[in-house]
C-alpha cells in the first residue's frame, strides 16, 4: 500500500513535470488566470490554459476523485492528496475551476440518476459546460424557505417562472442548477432541484454592479421556461435535501478561498515591499506588524483546521454542521487578511484605475471579500447553525 502510494507519487511527479506548461506554474494574479471552462471560454490569449486543462482532463485529473466512468480520475483519498501535494510542489495551478466541480458534481454523484451522471459529469470534467447556481431570490435572502420561483407541472416538462438574484456569473454560464417551488402548500417541503440550459427560451440575465466595480453576479429572470422533467434531480419536492448537501460544499469552497495560496505570502511580501524593514529586520510599521503576526497565527492554525476538516470529512467523522464553522471562520479570516493588505498597501492600494495598481486590484479584491461572509449563507446564519446543531443551544 505504502509502496503503491510512493510509486504513484513518483510517476505523478514525472508526469506533472513533463505536462504542466511553465505559464501554469506562475501564481494566479487575477480572475483572468482562473479557468472556468464553458462554451464561451476564450483561450486565444492563453492557449496553454486550454492545453493544460485538456491534458489533465484526459487523465481525469480535473476531478481526480470522481469515478472514471464519469470523467474522473478514480483516485482514492490518499492518491488524491498526493496528486494535490505534487501539484503544490511545483506551484501548478488548478486546471479547471467551476461550480460544476465544486458543487453540482458532488450533488449529482449523490442524488443524480445514472442518465444524469453520464450526461453532465463528463462535460463538467472536460470543462465543456460552465454551471451557475440559482438559489437566492430578491425576497428570500438568507431565508430560502421564502422561495417563490415556480415550476408548474405540464406533463413532460415544468414551466418555470420567477426571478433569482446573486446568480454568480449567470451571464457567462451555460447551464443552471436551480431551486424551484413545485408545491406551495409547505415551506421547505415543496422545493425541487432542476437543471436547465441558460440558452432556453425565456431565460435572461442582468449583471449587478458591485461596490468593487465588478459584476460577478446577476439577476436572472425566467419567463415561461420549459424544463424537461428528466432534468429533475432527486425526488420531487425534496430539492431542499440536495440544496443543503450542496451548500455544505459551497461553504467549504468559500471558506478555503484565498487561503490555500501557493508559494510566498502576498500579504507579508507586499507589506515588506511597501513599508520596508527596520534595523532590527522588522516591518517598519510596528503596530501593523503585530496585527499581521496575530493574523498569521489564526491563518496558519486555520490551515491546520482545513486539513483536519478534509481528513475528517473523508474519514466520515466530521460533524454534519462543521462546514458552517469552516465557512464562518474562513470568510472572516479572509476579510481580515484583505483589511491588512489594504493597510499594508497604503495610498498605493487606494488607486482604482491606474496600471500601477493593476486597475485597483487590491482595493477591488478587498471590497469583493466583504461578500464572503454574506454569500452562501451569512456569518450570522452559520453562527445560528453552530449554536443550534453543534452546541445544541435551545431555541428562543
Amino acid at each position, binding site marked *: 500500500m505504502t509502496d503503491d502510494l510512493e510509486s504513484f507519487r513518483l510517476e505523478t511527479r514525472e508526469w506533472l513535470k513533463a505536462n504542466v506548461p511553465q505559464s501554469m506554474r506562475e501564481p494566479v494574479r487575477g480572475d483572468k488566470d482562473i479557468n472556468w471552462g464553458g462554451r464561451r471560454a476564450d483561450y486565444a490569449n492563453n492557449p496553454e490554459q486550454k492545453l493544460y486543462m485538456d491534458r489533465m482532463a484526459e487523465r481525469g485529473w480535473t476531478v481526480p476523485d470522481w469515478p472514471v466512468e464519469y470523467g474522473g480520475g478514480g483516485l482514492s483519498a490518499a492518491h488524491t492528496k498526493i496528486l494535490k501535494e505534487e501539484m503544490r510542489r511545483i506551484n501548478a495551478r488548478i486546471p479547471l475551476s467551476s461550480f460544476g466541480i465544486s458543487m453540482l458534481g458532488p450533488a449529482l454523484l449523490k442524488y443524480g440518476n445514472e442518465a444524469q451522471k453520464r450526461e453532465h459529469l463528463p462535460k463538467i470534467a472536460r470543462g465543456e459546460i460552465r454551471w451557475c447556481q440559482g438559489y437566492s431570490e430578491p425576497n428570500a435572502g438568507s431565508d430560502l424557505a421564502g422561495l417563490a420561483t415556480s415550476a408548474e407541472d405540464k406533463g413532460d416538462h415544468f414551466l418555470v417562472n420567477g426571478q433569482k438574484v446573486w446568480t454568480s456569473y449567470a451571464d457567462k454560464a451555460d447551464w443552471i442548477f436551480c431551486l424551484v417551488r413545485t408545491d406551495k402548500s409547505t415551506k421547505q417541503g415543496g422545493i425541487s432541484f432542476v437543471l436547465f440550459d441558460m440558452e432556453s427560451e425565456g431565460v435572461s440575465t442582468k449583471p449587478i454592479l458591485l*461596490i468593487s466595480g465588478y459584476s460577478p453576479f446577476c439577476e436572472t429572470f425566467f419567463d415561461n421556461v420549459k424544463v424537461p422533467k428528466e432534468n429533475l434531480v432527486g425526488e420531487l419536492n425534496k430539492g431542499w435535501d440536495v440544496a443543503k448537501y450542496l451548500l455544505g460544499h459551497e461553504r467549504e469552497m468559500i471558506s478555503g478561498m484565498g487561503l490555500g495560496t501557493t508559494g510566498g505570502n502576498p500579504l507579508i511580501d507586499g507589506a515588506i515591499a511597501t513599508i520596508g524593514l527596520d534595523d532590527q529586520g522588522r516591518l517598519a510599521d510596528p503596530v501593523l506588524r503585530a496585527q499581521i503576526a496575530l493574523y498569521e497565527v489564526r491563518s496558519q492554525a486555520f490551515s491546520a483546521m482545513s486539513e483536519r476538516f478534509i481528513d475528517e470529512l473523508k474519514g466520515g467523522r466530521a460533524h454534519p454542521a462543521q462546514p458552517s464553522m469552516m465557512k464562518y471562520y474562513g470568510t472572516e479570516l479572509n476579510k481580515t487578511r484583505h483589511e491588512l493588505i489594504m493597510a499594508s498597501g497604503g495610498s498605493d492600494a487606494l488607486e*482604482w484605475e491606474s496600471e500601477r495598481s493593476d486597475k485597483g486590484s487590491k482595493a477591488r479584491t478587498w471590497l469583493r471579500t466583504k461578500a464572503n461572509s454574506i*454569500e452562501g449563507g451569512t456569518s450570522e446564519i452559520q453562527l445560528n447553525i453552530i449554536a443550534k446543531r453543534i452546541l445544541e443551544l435551545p431555541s428562543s
Partner: protein
Amino acid sequence: MPLYLNEEQTMLADTAKDFIGESAPVSHLRGLRDSKNSDGFSRDLWKQFAEMGFTGILIAEEDGGLGLGHVEAGVVLEEIGRNLTPSPFLTTAVAAVAALNGSAQRERWFPGILSGETVAALAIDEKAKHTAGIAMQAERSGNGFRLNGAKQFVTHGHIADLILVAARTGGSANDREGITLFAVPKDASGMTAEAERLADSSIAARLRFDGVEVDADAVIGEVDQGDKVLDTLLAAGRAGASAEMLGVGAGAMTLTVDYLKERKQFGSRIGSFQALQHRAAHLYSEMEVAHAAVLKAQQLLDSGAAEASRAVSVAKAMTGLATTLSVQEGIQMHGGIGMTDEYDIGFYMKRARVLAEMFGDANYHANLLAEMTGY
C-alpha cells in the same frame, strides 16, 4: 469649556447639516462619479461653501474670515463626511489655512480661498504609507530654491491652485530640523501631476518636481524650521480628517440602524435579533467615544494647549477604529444589497478607507502615542 457644542456652534452645525444635506447628499457624489468629473468635486458647490462663509472659518476676522476654530471647521467636516461630499474644504480651508495663518503668503492666498476660487493641496507624503520622514530636496538656487523629488496621495493636486510642499533644505530624511514648507503655485514650471482616481472616486495626484524653481518668499515660516508649520498643518489636517471620518461613520451607522428597523427576515424585523442589537449597541458606543475624542482634540487645538497633538493622534486613531467598524458592520448587516453599487453603504466604506489612510492611520497614531509616552 464643556465638552459639547455651544449655542453658536450648534447653530452652525444645523446650518451645515441643512445646507450640505440638501445641496450635496450622496447622490451628488454619485453624479460626479458617473459623469467622470475630472475635477473630483463641484466648483459651484465650492463657491457656495464660500458664500456660506465656510471657507473662512479658520481665517481671522481681520483677514476677512470668521475667526472661528477647529471645532467649527469640524462641524462642517462632519456633515461633509455624513454626506460623502467631495470637497477641497479639508485641504484648503482647514489644513492649508492653518499653515498659512500668520505667514506673509496669507495676503496672496486667503482672498481666493474666501471667495471660493482657490483650491489648495498638500504635498507631504512620499511613500505609500504616511511617515514623519521628508526626503524631497530643496536646494538653494539664486534668490530662491530648486525642488526635486516626488510626492503622492496629494488630494486635488491635479487641479490645485496652490500646493503646499514639504521639502528638505538641510539634515537627512528623518530629522525634524531641516524641513522647509513651500507654497508652490500651480503653474510652477517643472512640476507635473499624474491624476489618480481613488477607490472613493476622489482624485489624488502623484506629483513630480523636476528642478522646480521657487522664490524665497514661497517659504512658509522659516527656512529649515518648517517642522513647526508642518506640525500645525498636520494637526489641523488630522483633526479635520477625524471629524470628517466621524461623519462618515455616523452616516453609515444611521443607514444601518434604519435598515435594521425596516428589513424583515424569517418574519421579523432583523433589528429585533439580539445578536445584531448588541453589535449595533457596541458600534454606537465606539462612535460616541470617537466623537468625544474628536471634540476634545478640536478644543485643545483651539486653546493652543500643549496636549493638543496627543489628543489629535487619539482622535485620528479612534475615529479610524470606530468608523472602520461602522462601515464593516454596515455592509455585513445590509447583507447582499450592501454589496451593490446601487446602494450607498459601499460608498461609505470606500471613503472611510481613504480617510483612515490620510495623515497616518490608526496604527501610525497608536505607535506615535507610544513613542511620545516613551515606550
